[in-house]
């Protein structure tokens, strides 16, 4: 597998509330190829914990998580 860390997809889930960001990431990841990387933006404060749990349970890799001005950003690699 290549170590290419290029983000090939974006999911704007700003303004959406639980469970919508999780429903959306699940749909998005199904359209991706293994190894592809997606950037997700959320404003739901619950999303920080939700995305950690979602990645852990679905086996997809949470490469990076950050927060700026109330926007949570998750960089996720499809396994």
């Amino acid at each position: 597998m290549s170590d290419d860390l290029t983000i090939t997809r974006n999911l704007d889930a700003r303004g959406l509330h639980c469970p919508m960001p999780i429903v959306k990431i699940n749909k998005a990841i199904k359209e991706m190829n293994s190894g592809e990387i997606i950037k997700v933006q959320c404003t739901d404060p619950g999303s920080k914990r939700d995305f950690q749990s979602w990645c852990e349970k679905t086996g997809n890799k949470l490469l990076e998580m950050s927060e700026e001005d109330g926007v949570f950003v998750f960089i996720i690699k499809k396994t």
Partner: protein
Amino acid sequence: MREEELNEKKKKMAMIVSSGTMDKLYSVMMLASAASSMDVEVHLFFTFWGLNALKKGGIDKAELPSNVGISTDMLKGRLKEVKIPTLSELLAMCKESGNVKIYACSSTMEIMNVKKEDLIPEVDEIAGAAAFTGIALDSNVSLFV
């Protein structure tokens, strides 16, 4: 891996949906849509007042209980304002995931005189307590709502 083997590996969540009020149905539908998006197989067994949610047009007619100090219309307005999907939209998402199975309780149908054709097409099976027990015994989580 064959589909059966994949399903064997999936975690399972079983819920009895006995309440038909809007607040309880939101809890069920939000949890089910999140869990189904996490590759969890969700089994929803609708019984007693919960069964009303499976009648055609029924789920969006659900109301809040009278003792909560806020009217159903007020809550619906607020939900719309913050862009929370309606109950029927959440149900559609659940079914779209392919991970949610919906059962209508056969005894409740008899008691409430509900016919199969009164139910929404999203219902997978009409089943009884033994079927739910079998599912619950194989599940990682069981909830009564």
